[in-house]
Each structure stands twice: as structure tokens, then as C-alpha cells.
């Protein structure tokens, strides 16, 4: 009998109960509870009552305030009628989305549900472009934290990909000190983002920073990165790029080193130029890993806070205030409900962008490769 009991305990079923379920319950509790709790927080406000501090239910007021109310100018931005270029961009986007949808419908390969989802995706895309042109391509418009976040994410990723690929292409060559440079390029990735923020804070300080003599020698005594909104955003993107390019570099370097050199050599023997070899052999081979890098950076990039906060405090004005920074400021000033609402809107935004990217871009690129 005792042997049977021991046998039962040793069975796979017992192992599942003993080892898997506790882990599953723990993970669910740790990930689901904060999700549910933050939903509850996003529909409530903090109230100081005699004898207690309470959370009162206020419905969707926090969301309404961000999207349509008093905080709209900070979250979405100041929306003005687009310029001619803005209209052209909007109309062009809608036209392209419509053509793509019609082609999908005519192909007969997409199910009705797929078509409906594509229609929703097209409308969301047009909405985003409408927001972008109203804030960026208009007279008197100003981007809010949502658009600023998009600028940081996509501007940063573009620079990081370009630089990371360039560095990887250099490091894969048989150049002297190759190993040294590989390690050197990796260093920024090992520094905490707060440290990077403070380092760039010092470097961009033109009145007393370490580069002050350089600015003075170049006749840029009164130049500053931090009073012009676009220069300030550029400073944030440069800092973020400095930190994250090594990540792109190391992954692309690994991908480059795993490429079959014989194919490239055969192409060169057959008369292909270096550019043709890169364009038609190296790039397609790198595309799958590149799309994965972009996906990871999109998800990570939307959470940007250290650099704009430490470097500029979200300023000048609200020029570098990302969504996460706005949520942080709200949390810090005890507007817990609005902070949670921003966090949820960010979650939705990241989910939409990542889903669209995976569904429409990554799959096709991988197929192409």
C-alpha cells in the first residue's frame, strides 16, 4: 500500500499538481492581479477622508479627461486643421489602405472576419495619421505625449537599425582590433538608463558641461539643445540610440556571422557588386532577425521614460513628455487613477501596434526572405 502511494506521488499527474499548478497560480496571481487592480484604479480617484484614504469609483472619467477633456492637449496634443501637405499625407494613407483592402477582398483568400479586421485596422491607421497631421503638419498644432512617444519609438528605431547594421557590418570584417571594438560597442547597453540620462544631461549642458569649451570654440556659446522642441526630442533620441544601438548591433552581428559565406563569395565570383551582394543576399537573410529586433524595440521603446525625464523633465514645455512620463507625473502627484488610465491606453497602443506589425509586416517580410 505504501509503495502504491509512493508510486502515485511519482506519477506525472502528481508532478503536475505539485510543481506546475503552484507555479501557474503564482504567475497568474502576480500578473493578473496587478492588471485587474490597475483597471480598478483607472476608474477611481484617491480621496482623503477623515480617518482614511479611499478610492472612489468615478467610471470612465479619467479616460474621458485624457481623450476628450482637460488633459486632451497634454495627451493627444493641440489639434489644428492640417496644412496642404498634411491633407495630402492623410488622403494618400487612406487611398493606400483602401486599395490594400480592396485587393484583399478581391483575392478571395481572406475570410470575412479577416476583411472586417483589416477594415478596423485601416480605420485605426487613418485615425493615427489624422492625429499626426493635425499635431505635426498643421498651423498651431502641437503633439501630445502619445505622438511624442511615437516619435521617440520610430525615430529611435530607425537610427538604431541604421547604426547597428553599419557597426555589425564593420565588426564582421577582418579588421584589426575587431574583438576590442565589439566589446566597446557593447558598453552602452550595460549602463543603467538613468546613468545614460545623467551623462547626456552633462554633455548637452552648454553653459557648464564638459563640452562647454568646445561649444565656445565653435561659436555656439548661446546654442542650447533644450529650448527648441525638436532639438530636445533629437537629444532624447540620440541618447536612446546611444544606449540601444549595441543591442541591435550584437543581434545583427550574430546573424551576419551565421550567414553562409559561400553564397556571397559565389555571387562575387559571378560578377555581383558589393552593393548587389548586400541588397540581394545579405539583406534578405537578415530580414527575419531584423523584424524581430524591431518588434522587441517597439515594445520596449513605448515605455521610454528615463531619458526624457532626467535629461529634460519632459520639457521644454511638454515637448519630450512621453506617455510613461506623463503617467509617472500623475502617479507622483497622487493622481493614481489617471496614471493607471494612461498605462492602460499605453497597453492598448502597444498591443495594436505590435499586432499590426506582426500580422502585416513581419509575416510578409519573413515570407519574402
Amino acid at each position, binding site marked *: 500500500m505504501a509503495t502504491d502511494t509512493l508510486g502515485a506521488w511519482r506519477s506525472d499527474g502528481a508532478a503536475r499538481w505539485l510543481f506546475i499548478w503552484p507555479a501557474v497560480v503564482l504567475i497568474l496571481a502576480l500578473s493578473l492581479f496587478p492588471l485587474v487592480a490597475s483597471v480598478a484604479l483607472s476608474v477611481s480617484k484617491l480621496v*482623503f477622508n*477623515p*480617518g482614511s484614504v479611499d478610492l472612489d469609483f468615478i467610471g470612465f472619467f479619467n479616460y474621458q479627461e485624457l481623450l476628450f477633456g482637460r488633459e486632451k492637449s497634454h495627451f493627444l496634443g493641440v489639434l489644428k486643421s492640417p496644412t496642404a501637405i498634411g491633407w495630402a499625407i492623410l488622403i494618400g494613407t487612406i487611398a493606400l489602405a483602401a486599395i490594400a483592402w480592396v485587393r484583399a477582398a478581391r483575392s478571395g483568400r481572406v475570410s470575412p472576419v479577416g476583411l472586417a479586421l483589416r477594415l478596423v485596422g485601416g480605420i485605426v491607421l487613418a485615425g493615427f495619421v489624422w492625429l499626426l497631421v493635425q499635431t505635426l503638419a498643421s498651423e498651431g498644432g502641437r503633439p501630445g505625449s502619445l505622438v511624442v512617444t511615437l516619435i521617440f519609438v520610430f525615430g529611435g528605431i530607425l537610427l538604431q537599425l541604421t547604426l547597428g547594421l553599419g557597426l555589425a557590418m564593420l565588426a564582421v570584417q577582418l579588421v584589426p582590433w575587431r574583438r576590442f571594438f565589439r566589446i566597446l560597442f557593447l558598453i552602452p547597453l550595460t549602463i543603467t538608463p538613468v546613468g545614460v540620462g545623467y551623462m547626456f544631461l552633462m554633455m548637452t549642458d552648454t553653459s557648464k558641461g564638459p563640452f562647454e569649451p568646445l561649444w565656445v570654440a565653435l561659436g555656439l556659446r548661446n546654442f*542650447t539643445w533644450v*529650448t527648441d522642441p525638436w532639438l530636445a526630442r533629437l537629444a532624447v533620441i540620440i541618447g536612446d540610440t546611444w544606449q540601444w544601438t549595441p543591442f541591435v548591433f550584437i543581434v545583427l552581428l550574430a546573424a551576419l556571422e551565421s550567414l553562409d559565406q559561400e553564397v556571397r563569395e559565389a555571387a562575387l565570383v559571378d560578377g555581383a557588386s558589393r552593393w548587389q551582394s548586400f541588397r540581394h543576399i545579405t539583406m534578405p537573410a537578415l530580414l527575419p532577425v531584423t523584424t524581430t529586433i524591431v518588434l522587441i524595440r517597439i515594445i520596449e521603446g513605448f515605455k521610454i521614460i528615463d531619458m526624457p525625464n532626467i535629461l529634460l523633465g519632459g520639457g*521644454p514645455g511638454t515637448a519630450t513628455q512621453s506617455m510613461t512620463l506623463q503617467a509617472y507625473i500623475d502617479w507622483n*502627484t497622487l493622481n493614481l487613477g489617471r496614471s493607471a488610465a494612461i498605462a492602460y491606453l499605453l497597453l492598448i497602443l502597444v498591443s495594436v501596434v505590435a499586432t499590426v506589425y506582426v500580422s502585416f509586416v513581419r509575416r510578409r517580410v519573413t515570407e519574402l526572405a
Partner: protein
Amino acid sequence: MSRYRMVAAAIIPILVLTACNSSASPSPSSPAASTPAASTSASAPAAAASQGTKFKGANVNILTFNGPQVAEPLQRRAPDWAKLTGGHVNVVAVGFQTIYDKALLDASTGTNSFDGYVFDPQWMGDFVTPGYLLDLTDREKNDPQLNQQDIVPFFRDYNSVYNGKNYTIPLDGDFHMVYYRSDLLTKDGLKPPATWDDYLTIAQKYNGKDLNGDGQPDYGSCIAKKKGAQSYWWIISVAAGLLQGKGTSDGAFFDTSNMNPLFGKNDAMTLALQTYAKTATFGPPDELNMDVGGSRGLFTTGRCALTMDWGDIGTLTPGTYAQDKTGATITPGWKQVLDRASGKLVPCDATTCPDAVDGVNYAPFGSFGGWSGAINAKAPKANQDAAYDFLSYMSAPAQSGIDVTLGKTGFNPYRTSHFTNTAPWLAAGLSQAATDNYLGAIKTSLDNKNFVLDLRIPQTKQYEQDVLDTAIAQYLAKELDEAGTEQAIADGWNAITDQAGKDKQLAAYVASLGIKK
């Protein structure tokens, strides 16, 4: 079977090690457990007991700022207090932004792991209303060690008081003053700025000139205007003299009769905003991104003719270029004041500005209010007594008289004895002339009956650090004009007031000003 043995063999040492670690770790109730690196213990109670036994066995946890200022004097003096009383103090030091959240969470969840706090008295509104702070009125009144009558009236009767009761023990006297290069002004026969117009005139005169002999042009004015830092406090100082004319209880933030924001649409606010923006034209190019560390660095290296700061500049100048070249003066005022009924500016006279000096309405601003000690109302009685005694010991003239002269403490003068006993100031490196000038400016400010009390009502952080800071940053960055800024502040403040309950907020504001209705 061997697989299970291996797993067991791996698990058993881990469990044993964990058990050993657990027994060596502080108990979960000890806040030191959460921030061991930041916590400093006083000498062991057993060792202390040989000299003092008043609080023998008491183990007091005090939450404060990790500075290193503020925590430094508490940590330095905790062993001395332990020797005197046999008590034991854990100073749990955390980041500035964390103190409030940690204290509120600890009290509101009933954890009560902290017996006392050294924090911002602005937060009293949020802590007193739910009943988290101990009423210290009688203790302070009857405490010979504290010597309450030595504390200057503003900090004793306003800053540490909420709704007529004392809830905090002052450890620091914080308010704004203007600092100027006394060598330059003396050489040119100029007087320190009495009004904000004077300030702009002097700033313009020296802007672009070499002020420290390094051959490089320097700046007329350096004021930290970074968003998310101290910018919103300076605009209050600029506006204060236009908004408050009839003494501290008049209030500078809201109309005490109807809770209408004074920082809304009116001529006073327009003039204050324009003046604040003009100071930036005589400052460093990156002033919009400069916090107080930056402005202090520029002033002490001789690169600015004027700056606005708390009392810290006075104790930071010894050993720098600005030593014995620095003068301090009361924050400049205005010759006009807001008529709250019409929203227009009216000249200062005996009715509109009864405390004006030479027709100038000064309104020195007690921004932040100064680090203050408070006691957790739910802490065990023995710990409350010990925590109170430690904070009282810290504030006592013998200790605070030294601490306020040291730049590393972050504490500024707040007692009469701090002004009458100049020996510690001279010992700290200030010359007699610099000491007299510095203490004179502080005393002039503190003696002013129109001293402005910082906002101390529930949701203060939202009013100031969110709405006001954002609107001012947008104005300085030219995202908003004067009208738009005033509208944004008024709308934001009204929204917070309405959400929290207008009557409740008005009652809290009136209570914070010590008004009895």
C-alpha cells in the same frame, strides 16, 4: 528514484541556507529591511544604556530624505541621543519622491512601521485629515528642551500648525531670498533689488559682462527653471507680492472666501508671468533645463550677478569664488497689489498693503516650508514619546544652532537664537560681514508679517507639481501665452478642487492659514 534524490539533495541545502538567512534578517516590520543600504542605526541600545535610561529599549524608526542632506544630521546625532536616553533610532532614508508615498502607504494600510517622519510640512493636509499625525500642541508648549518660544513666529505659529494645532517640529527654515554679487553692486553704487523691476534692471546691466575675471561673458540672472524641478516655486515668489497684501492669513493661492484660484486670469498673474519670463532673457541659454544645483553652481563660481534660492547659498559660498562677494536680501516685492474683486492691480497703500515698506509690498515665500518632524499617531506610545524626544533634541538650540550653519545638513535658520549667536556661523567659514548680511536678510524676511505660506491642502502635489509646473513650463517654452497659462492653471486647480470637494478644500485652505471662522 535517483532523480528524486538529486532534486532533494539540491533543495535541502537551499532550504537550510534560506532558513539561516531568514534568522539573520531584520523582521518584516523593520523598515530597515526594505532599504538596508539607506538605513543607519544609532549605537546599540545595550551600549547606550550605561549612560541614559529614559527610553531604554525603545527602537524608533524615522523616515526621511536620503539627501545626503537632511538624513546626515539625523544620522550623525542619533548616537548622541542614544547615549543620553538609551533609545535607539533607525533613520530610514529614501528618495525625495518616495517619502510621501512610503509614509502615506505605511499609515493608510495600518502597517505603521514608522514612528516618525522628517518630511515636507506641505503634506500636513494629506496626513492630518485622515488622522495619521499626532497632535503635538501640548508637548511642544511644555517641552523645555524644544524651547518653543525660541522658534520664530512664522515657523511656530503657521508652518507647524494645521487647524490651530501643532503637528510638526521645525528642523529647518525654508523660504526664498534673492542673492546678489555684493562686490559688483558696491563697486557700481547700486542697492540690492527692492522690487522685481529693480531685479530686471540689475540683471540686464550685468548680463553678458565678465563677472568672474575668466574673460568669458556671464549672466545677469540665474534661476532654475527646469520642468519637474523647482521652477513652479520661483513663479510663486515672483507673484506673491502682487497676490497677497494683508498678511499671511490673506493667502496667496486662493481667495479665502470662495476658493477661486488667484493664479488664474488677472492682471497680477499676467505681470508675474511676464516678469518671470524676462528673467530668462538675462540667464544662461539652457536655463529652462537648469535645476537648483545648476543655478547654485553658476552663482558660486561667479557666473551670475543675481539668483533666487533658499537659505542654502549662504552656507555654500565659503571656499568658492563667491565667498565674501555674496549679499542676500528679502525677495523683491511690488508697488502694486491685486484687487481680488476686479482682478486689476491697484497701488499699494495703507489699506491694500498695510505692511509695505517704503511703498513696496514684500511677500517672502516660505516655499516648501522647511524639513519638519512629525509623529505617527498610530505608533506605540513608548515609541511616540521616544521619537518626539529625538526630534525635539534635533531641533533644540544646542544642536540646531550648529546644524543650520553647515551646508551639508540642508537646514536653514528658524530660531531667534540662530540669529543672535553668530559664533557657529563664523566657525563655519563665513566672515562677520557675510554673516551679518545673510542673517540680516533672513531676519528681515521672517519678521515680515506678509510672509507667504506654501500650499498645504489635500492634493497639494497635484495643484503645484502637476498643474502649476506644467503650465509654467509650457509658458516658458512658449507653448502657451499669458492668458492660456492663467486659464490652464485656473482650470486645472478648479478641477482638482471640484473633484476633492470645494467646501472641503476651502475649509482645509482656511485651516492651513490659521484662520478661525
